[in-house]
């Protein structure tokens, strides 16, 4: 089980201006080239950061979805949702 593609989405958001704009304008198209599982894809599209964290994505990376305000996320919404994720141990 790899969340590498999820991390790639977050990293591209940070550093790739064109990807960031596409993710804002047409998220499904923007995510299409990434090797995401269906579950990861739908979790991203619905901003379900708790699910993504439960799947193994790193909070350091997921947090950028909020700080860049994409996929319906703000810092407040992120905080509310991530609280529902499983604790690490």
């Amino acid at each position, binding site marked *: 089980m790899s969340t590498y593609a999820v991390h790639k989405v977050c990293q591209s958001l940070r550093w790739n201006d064109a990807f960031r704009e596409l993710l804002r304008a047409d998220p499904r198209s923007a995510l299409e080239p990434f090797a995401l599982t269906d579950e990861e894809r739908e979790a991203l599209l619905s901003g379900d950061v708790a699910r993504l964290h439960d799947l193994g994505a790193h909070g350091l990376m997921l*947090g*950028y979805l909020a700080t860049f305000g994409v996929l319906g996320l703000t*810092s407040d919404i992120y905080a509310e949702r991530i609280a529902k994720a499983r604790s*690490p141990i």
Partner: protein
Amino acid sequence: MRPLPRSGERGGRVVSELVAAVAVPHASHYLREVPREPQGHTAQVWRAVGAHLEAVRPDVLLMIGNDHMNTFFFDNLPLFCVGVADRTDGPHDEFGADPSYGMPQHLMPQYEVPVNADLAQHVRARGIADGFDLALTQEFSVDHSMMVPLHFLRPAMDLPIVPLWVNGVAPPLPTARRCHALGASVGRAIASWPPDARVAIVASGSISRDLGSPLGRGQRASVPDPAWAATVVRHLQRGEARRVVEEATADRLALAGNVAGELLNWIALLGAVGDRKPVLAERMGEGDASIVWRWDL
């Protein structure tokens, strides 16, 4: 390097000397706090550590820090890596536009920083000979882990650095014992470096810190385990580095936050300084989780 009196000799061979060891935090919020309160406690502590480094006249700063997926990424992720080049730059960070979260690229200059490639190669070669599988990068930028401390301690950027990265962010992390032993190897590398130079180690990190996981209970950056922070502080104040190394297990660090592996940078520094007690310990806000330490050598 400036001509200096001999730092030391071993059997007639001139060698270099570890002249300072400081452990500092690197959080980007200091970039807001210090300009806002230039006479406040935090600003004073940064200045005091900078003054200490100036007083010991180092020729090189060996920086031990953890990358935050800015220099490296999951595609190619070293546990330990030495940067060998003549120069670097930073902070290479992209935090996003949320104003509630520090944006180093807007709150501090982009710096050019010289790197001492010779010491970097020597540290790596000595480490490999000691059994540490140290990765290599020769073209890199550095992130806030090293640039925030440099910004506060040596903004002139006149001293060359050697960057040594420890993975403290992406589990499985190197063990505390391994990091401590690596620090001892780095200490030996410094002591065996021919040029008769004065070397300071600046390790940046934290004891309990979380960025965006459920441990943070809603905060972007938080301190999930203040009890662990207090424990580490107590051990360090008593010069009991061994207890920090023993107790900093993977599970303990995981409870302390998803970047609590930043402690490993300080644990590496402990390996270089041995059992000496620190002579300075200042809290920098966040209770016991952000401390500045100094060892006199």
